[in-house]
Each structure stands twice: as C-alpha cells, then as structure tokens.
C-alpha cells in the first residue's frame, strides 16, 4: 500500500512542524508570520492570524551585538540572544534607568527571566522583548517579575498551546504601557487568559479579546466583563463567522460607549451571551451585527427582545428574516423595534405562523402605523378565531382597518373575537372577512352574524347568503337595509326556509333600498300572508330567483289577483316564475319601447289590471309547440303549462328551456296584444296585420329592438303561406280572387303591404304559387323572376294600421 500513511500508536495525527530556529541576523522588529503588529499601546492592531494554535512562525532573530553582556548566552534554549533591547514602547520615566542599566550587571528580574524555562519557551522576539522590558524597567517594573513569570508560565503551559501571535500579544501588553500600570495589566491579562473559555476560542478571537482588554486600559471591570463572556455557553456556542465578527466588534468597543451599539461593550457582551441571539440562524445573526454597527446603543437590546419573543421564535425563517430586516432599515427607530417585539408577542401573531407572508405584511403594517401599535396588536386578538384557511385573509382584512380610528378597531375586534364569527363555516367566514375589507361594514357584519335569522340558516345557508353579499359588494348601507328588512314583522313571521329566500333576494338584489321596500311590501301584504305555505315558498322562490324590485313588486301584485288565487299550487309556481322572468327582463331593459311593452303587458293582468292569465294544456309534441293563445274576443291569455315545470326553479332552468323563455315573454306580449286590439279572425288584411302586429310587439319585447326588414319579411311571408292553423286564413286572404277573376280587395291590400319589402308594387307574377307568398330573391337559391328585398337590415315596416303597439 504505497500510498498509505502509517499511523503508529501514539504518533501525532498531524505533523507538528519543528520550530525553526535560526541564528541569522534579522531585523529585530520583524513581525511574526501572523502579522500581529504592536500598536503604541502594545495591543495587536489586526487579527489576521490563522487559528492554528501550533504557531510555528520562525522566531525573529536578535542581533547579538545588541544583547547586554550579562545576558549573552543566557537565553538558551530559545537560541536567540538578547533581542530587541532597544525598547520602543517604554515610558519616559523608565528611559533614564534603562540607559544606566546597559553597562550594569543583569538585574535580578532579568536573571529570573532568563533562567525561567517558561520564558525560554517563548518565541525569541517575545522573549527578547520581555527581557528588554525588565532590563530597562524601573522599580515598578521589577516588582512585577514574579507576576510576569507566573503569567508566562501559564501561557507556555496552556493547553492547547496558544498561538505564537496570541502569546506575542500578551507579551506586548505586558511590556507596553506605563510601568505604573504594569501590575494592573498583568492582573487583567492573567484573568483573561485563565478564563475557562479562553482556550475554546480561536487565536484570532483571543487576540481580539486581548485587544479589547487593552482598549479598556486593562481595567479590572473590562477584564471581568470579558471573563464573563468566556464563561458563557451561548457565546462559546456561537457559530463562525458570527462569533469572530462579534469579538472583533468587542475588540474595538471603546470605553465609555460610543454613538452606536458597536461602540458599546456592554451591549456587545450582552449580545454575545444572549440566548435569543445564539438561537438565530447565522444570516440572521449577521443582520443583528449589522444593526449593531449602524444603530445607537440600546437599539440592539430591542432587537434581542424581538428575537426572544415567542412569536418570533415560532415564526418561519422567512418571517424572522423579514422582521430583522425591518429592524435593520435605516429609517426604523428603536421604538419601532419595540413595536415589532410587541406585535410578535400579541396573542394572535402566533396564530398566523402558518401564513408567513401574512406575518410579514403585518410587520410592514405595524411599522407603517408605528403610532398605533397597540391598536394593531389589539386587532390580532381574533386571529385564532379564524379558520386556518382564513388566517391570511384575516390579516389582509385587518390591514384594511385604519388603526388610528378607534371605532373601526373596536368594530373589527368585536366581530372577529365574537363566538358567532368563530362558529361560522370556513367559506362563510371567508366571505365575512372579505366584506369586512370595507371597515365601515364591520358593525353591520357583527349584527348580521349575531342575528337569529342568519344563525337560523345553518352553515350551507349562511355560506350561500354571504357569498351573494360578497358578490353584490355589500357595505354598511346595504347591511343596514338588510337588518331593517329582517327586523320587519312580515319577515319575522316567515318560516326559516322562506326567510332564507327573502334574505337571498335582498343579497342578490344588491341590498338596494328599492329592493328592501319591495320585499318588505311583499312579505307584509295581507294577500301574501293569506297564502298557504307552499304558495308563499313558490312566490318567494321567484323573488329570490329574480332578485330585483320590479319582480318583487309584481309578485306582490300577482298574489292579489283573483286569477292567481284560483290557481292550484302547480300553476301558481308556473305563474310566479313567468312574472319573475318577465319582470326581470323589464327591470334590466335599456330599450324604452321594450320596457313600455313589457310593463304595459304586465299591467294588463296584474291588479288593478283586469285581464286574466291562465295556464292551459296546449300542444307540445314532436311535431310542434304552441306557446300560448288568446281565445278570440276575450281578454284572457294562456300560456302552455307544458313548457313550465311546476317547481320553484327559474324559467330558464326548466326541462323546456328555450321554449319556456319564449313563452314567458314573447308569447305573453304577443297574446296580450291580440286581446288589446281585439281584431277578429278571418280571411282579411286586418287579421293579417293583427298577427303581424302581435309578432312585432312580441319580437321587441323579447329582443329589445325592432325587427329588421329581413326578419319582418320572413314572418309576413310565413303568415301568408301557412297551409294550416289560424294563419291558413291569411293565406286565403292573399290568394283570394274576386268575381272578376282578379285579386280581391283583401288580397290587393296584402300584396300592397308586401310591396313595402321590395320598394316597388308587386304584380301577380311576383307572387309565389306554393310554399311562399312572394318570389323573393333569397341567398343562393335564386330563380328567374325573383324580386329583390330592399334595405334588408333597415327597420321593418310598421303594422297597418298601427293600432295599439305597446299593449
């Protein structure tokens, strides 16, 4: 196995490079590889050393020529001889004695040092620097030799070994500064390097802490603070690079605190030892550190409070990221962070944890309304009452409320914290929340969900009703009208099922005042009240199916009609749907003629109108459909009941859809027109015009426009060429011949009317012999002798005579 590395028992797993010793002259002040450079105060200025504690940087050589005679050869086994005797960082007070000592015998302290195995273990540069300090130092320095030796002993016996750069930093600290403060420095250095956690941090961090110590003048207070830091498990557990960066900030923190948190040692130490900070993800810790660098002292504590809140801790990482990012924004104030902290502690915030986007938006909202923090938090009280699926919606709705308006806030809280809100199904609740996006609707919604009529509808009914209200865009005014309607005696007297229909009619009718008045009038009318239960339901079903005030008003008239009262329930159901359908066409019409025709038609048979409306068994077969009829000479019109199902659905939802709508509007107006004009049947031009007129009126009622000439020609030709039915009379009138063998007077009038479609007088050769009345040129099916239909899309000729055209 040529590529294997043999690991002998007991052998080190890594190759500790041997310390390189040299006697070559070098520049005394050459820095170690770690690059630690002594500052004026003796503390390292940078922290670029590697973490490796087995610092094997070659020891800087010392110029033998500069070693005091008494020291020559006395520095073994370090290999170097008295180095760095030119003390650079010695106080002026020490200077004169130092010079005097140069020719003197070694001081006892120096001897102690040179004899010390611990000192011998120091890198040559540090060793020389230390000896030099004592060689040149005055009494105050000499007095610290034992303490120094003790410290050096600890340094050199440290497990694991300290990096040379760390040791160098300590030595630099010992040897720099005023002699009078040496004792203090030694004590603080001893305290720091002896702290239990010192060997658990990186060399770079060790140097930074030494720097911090120097930054604070080696005060006992600072030493104590840093010692606390090194005992703290949270600090020691911080990940990199967080811990390194934090210690870097600590190293630079001045005393007293500067203008930002990064200049506040207490704040930084607190941060470093804070459990909430330790619990953050590294990226989040990074944000906090950035905050420390840009915000004033005290700010970071608020951030840590935020990070410590249960709501923050339980939130998704993206929420925590967002909240910290908010805290980091330049415009964010300390009070804002406190607000965010309070927000995350609000009872409802945690309920939104499954909807992190909502929590993020709430954070934004809280900042945008920094002066109404309490109101924002108060409004979260009902969050847990919202179904989990609705919680994002809850937050959205909350943010539609103006927190500066106490009445809105109170109304939102009242609604969302109510048991009735909580009891709603999720769909109903969602609708309520959407409706509540109009804050002025909040009081009305609260009343609604608490009302007995609403609660009596059950989950399905509530869902349907609220969905309609939502669709209709209910606001405060609509809800007030709704409340008024449901408080009416006529309404409260209804069965729950009928109440549901009325409420739906109001909701689908967009909650207008007209609809409220119409529905109130219907349910309060004596004739309505007198109806049997099934008839009430039939009528109210159509008020709900056709939710407009015109329908409700006409249904109210309908229940007063004698013909309605005499109908069986099945025909009442059919009739109610016809009235609802026709009224709705009237209500929605934008064509004045159409409106007039439908309105007048309904007025003919709805009280005080005197016409009679009947249902009849007319033809509905595979051959043909009879939509309705007007028995000659009567004011009765009949609709084919086979076209209308006996139920409470809409006309257009029946089994004969397509025919039923035609019957309920076109046929109704057509037949009433016959009754209004009362033209007798017969082989006459007048009857031809009576049918043409009735068709024209029905057409406008159904289509909302007058027919064009193509459509009118088709109808006229159809009437005049029918070979069976009542229209057979019209064909006879067309082909009738007088005693002179020429067209009769009636025929001539018919032909003259048909000439209106061609623009020129038709002759007998223009008349068709079979199947058609006129040899009109139509499409590709042309033949010689055909006449042209002029202006095909122009308005159709009006009936002649006009008579009553709007019923």
């Amino acid at each position: 196995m040529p590529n294997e590395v043999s690991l002998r028992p007991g052998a080190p797993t890594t190759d500790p490079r041997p310390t390189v010793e040299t006697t070559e002259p070098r520049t005394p002040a050459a820095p170690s590889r770690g690059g630690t450079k002594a500052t004026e105060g003796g503390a390292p200025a940078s922290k670029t050393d590697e973490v490796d504690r087995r610092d094997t940087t070659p020891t800087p050589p010392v110029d033998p020529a500069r070693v005091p005679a008494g020291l020559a050869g006395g520095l073994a086994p370090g290999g170097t001889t008295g180095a760095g005797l030119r003390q650079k960082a010695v106080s002026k007070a020490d200077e004169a004695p130092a010079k005097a000592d140069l020719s003197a015998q070694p001081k006892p302290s120096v001897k102690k040092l040179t004899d010390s195995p611990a000192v011998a273990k120091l890198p040559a540069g540090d060793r020389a620097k230390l000896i030099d300090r004592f060689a040149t130092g005055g009494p105050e320095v000499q007095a610290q030799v034992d303490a120094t030796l003790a410290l050096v002993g600890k340094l050199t016996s440290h497990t694991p070994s300290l990096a040379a750069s760390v040791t160098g930093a300590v030595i630099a600290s010992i040897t720099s500064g005023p002699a009078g403060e040496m004792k203090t420095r030694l004590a603080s250095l001893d305290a720091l390097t002896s702290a239990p956690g010192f060997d658990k941090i990186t060399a770079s961090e060790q140097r930074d802490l030494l720097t911090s110590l120097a930054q604070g003048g080696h005060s006992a207070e600072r030493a104590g603070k840093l010692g606390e830091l090194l005992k703290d498990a949270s600090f020691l557990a911080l990940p990199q690079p967080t811990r390194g960066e934090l210690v870097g900030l600590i190293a630079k923190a001045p005393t007293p605190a500067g203008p930002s948190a990064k200049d506040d040692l207490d704040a930084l130490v607190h941060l470093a030892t804070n459990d909430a900070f330790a619990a953050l993800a590294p990226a989040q810790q990074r944000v906090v550190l950035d905050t420390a660098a840009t915000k004033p002292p005290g700010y970071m504590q608020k951030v840590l409070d935020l990070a410590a809140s249960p709501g923050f801790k339980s939130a998704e990482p993206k929420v925590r990221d967002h909240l910290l990012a908010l805290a980091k924004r330049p415009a964010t104030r300390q009070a804002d962070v406190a607000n965010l902290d309070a927000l995350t502690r609000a009872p409802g915030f945690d309920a939104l944890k499954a909807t992190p986007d909502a929590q993020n938006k709430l954070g934004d909202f809280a900042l945008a309304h920094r002066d109404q923090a309490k109101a924002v938090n108060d409004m979260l009280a009902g969050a847990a009452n919202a179904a989990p699926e609705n919680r994002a919606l809850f937050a959205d709705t909350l943010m539609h409320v103006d927190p500066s308006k106490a009445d809105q806030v109170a109304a939102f809280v009242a609604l969302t914290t109510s048991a009735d809100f909580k009891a709603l199904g999720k769909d109903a609740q969602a609708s309520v929340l959407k409706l509540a996006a109009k804050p002025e609707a909040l009081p009305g919604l609260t009343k609604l969900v608490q009302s007995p009529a609403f609660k009596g509808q059950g989950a399905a009914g509530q869902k349907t009703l609220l969905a309609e209200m939502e669709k209709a865009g209910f606001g405060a005014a609509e809800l007030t009208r709704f409340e008024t309607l449901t408080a009416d005696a006529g309404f409260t007297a209804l069965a729950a099922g009928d109440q549901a229909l009325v409420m739906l009619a109001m909701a689908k009718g967009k909650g207008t005042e007209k609809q409220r008045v119409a529905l109130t009038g219907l349910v309060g009318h004596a004739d309505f009240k007198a109806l049997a239960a099934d008839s009430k339901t039939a009528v109210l079903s159509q008020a709900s199916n056709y939710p407009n005030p015109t329908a409700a008003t006409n249904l109210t008239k309908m229940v007063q009609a004698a013909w309605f009262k005499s109908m069986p329930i099945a025909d009442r159901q059919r009739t109610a749907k016809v009235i609802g359908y026709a009224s709705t066409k009237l209500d929605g019409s934008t064509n004045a003629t159409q409106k007039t025709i439908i309105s007048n038609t309904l007025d003919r048979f709805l009280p005080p109108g005197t016409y009679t409306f009947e249902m009849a068994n007319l033809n509905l077969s595979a051959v043909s459909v009879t939509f309705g009829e007007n028995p000659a000479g009567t004011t009765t019109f009949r609709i084919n009941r086979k076209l209308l199902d006996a139920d409470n659905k809409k006309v257009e939802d029946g089994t004969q859809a397509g025919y039923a709508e035609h019957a309920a509007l076109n046929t109704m107006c057509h037949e009433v027109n016959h009754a209004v004009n009362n033209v007798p049947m017969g082989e006459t031009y007048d009857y031809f015009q009576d049918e043409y007129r009735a068709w024209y009126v029905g057409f406008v009622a159904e289509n909302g426009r007058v027919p064009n000439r193509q459509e009118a020609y088709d109808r006229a030709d159809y009437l005049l060429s029918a070979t069976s039915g009542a229209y057979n009379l019209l064909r006879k009138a067309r082909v009738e011949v007088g005693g002179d063998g020429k067209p009769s007077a009636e025929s001539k009038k018919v032909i003259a009317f048909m000439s209106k479609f061609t623009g020129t007088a038709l002759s007998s050769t223009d008349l068709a012999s079979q199947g058609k009345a006129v040899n009109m040129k139509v499409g590709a099916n042309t033949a010689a002798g055909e006449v042209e239909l002029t202006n095909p899309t122009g308005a159709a000729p009006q009936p002649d005579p006009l008579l009553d055209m709007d019923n």
Partner: protein
Amino acid sequence: MASAQALSPAAKGHIEKRLRDAQLDPARYVLEPLAEWPQDRLRLIAANPTKDKTADAPLFAVLADDNVVMAGDPEGFQKVVAKAFPSPQPGDAALVAQLAVRFGAYGQPVGVFVAKLPAAKASAKLPRADARPVMTRRDGTAVIDHYSYDFDRQRLFDCHLELGPAGAVKASCKPAA
C-alpha cells in the same frame, strides 16, 4: 263543427275522437284538406282553429280504410310515408321532407319545412347554400337532406332523413343557424 267535404263520416268520426282525446274541442275547429298538398298522393286533413289565434292545427292523414294517423303519433311518419311514397323519387324530396316535419319524424319540433332560406338566414354559413332538399340513393336507401325553420324562435335546422328499403327510417335534425 264545420263540415269537411269528401270526408267520410267514419274518417270524420275518427278525427273528432282524436281531437277530443287531445282535450281539444272539435267545435272550435274546421276540418280542411291541407292546402298546397297533393291530396291524390295522400289525404291530409288539417283541423284549423276558428276561434283561437294560434298557428297550431292538428293534422291527420286519412288512410284507405278511413282510419287516421294523427301528426305526432308514434311511427306516424313511417305509416304515411310507406303509404304515399313507398319508393320515393328525387322529385318527391320536398313532399317527403314536409311529411317528416309535419308528422314528427325528428322527435322534436323543428318548425316548418322550407325549400328556400329565410331572408334573415340567407347570409349565414350553412352546410348547403341551396335550401332545396336533396335526395340521393345509397344501397337502396333514399337519403334526403333539407332545412326546416322555427319562425317563432328564428332557428334554422339542418335535417337528415334516411328511408330504408324495409320501411326503416332514420331521422335527425341539428341547429344550423
């Protein structure tokens, strides 16, 4: 009830009974031969209303034994077409198509047979631009394609009729415009 000339008392009786069965009052109708129809091919009698303004008129085919087939009767079209057009020729296409519409061969009301497009539909995109019925023969089956029009609802139907050699009938209509 108005008289219907040349109708035997038996045939008349059958028709009146059928009217009553349909809850119609014979007194409100006059029985007349269907106009513009070749009665020599098949006797068709229309019960035209005299008091009600309606296009609807029950139609009857009078068979040789004076029994009648009422339009809409089950298999009514099969019976009358077999009698009147046992082997239809191309020139019979319009009459056969008319019978199919009038006697309910298509199972639904499809208006009235038209051999010429309504003016309002003349510019519509249609399967056949020429509205005249077309008859072809395939393996002994007469196939007729034609249009019908519901004048009340202004709907055009494209109808397809197949008359098989053993009296089998296949018929269908679909909206065309």
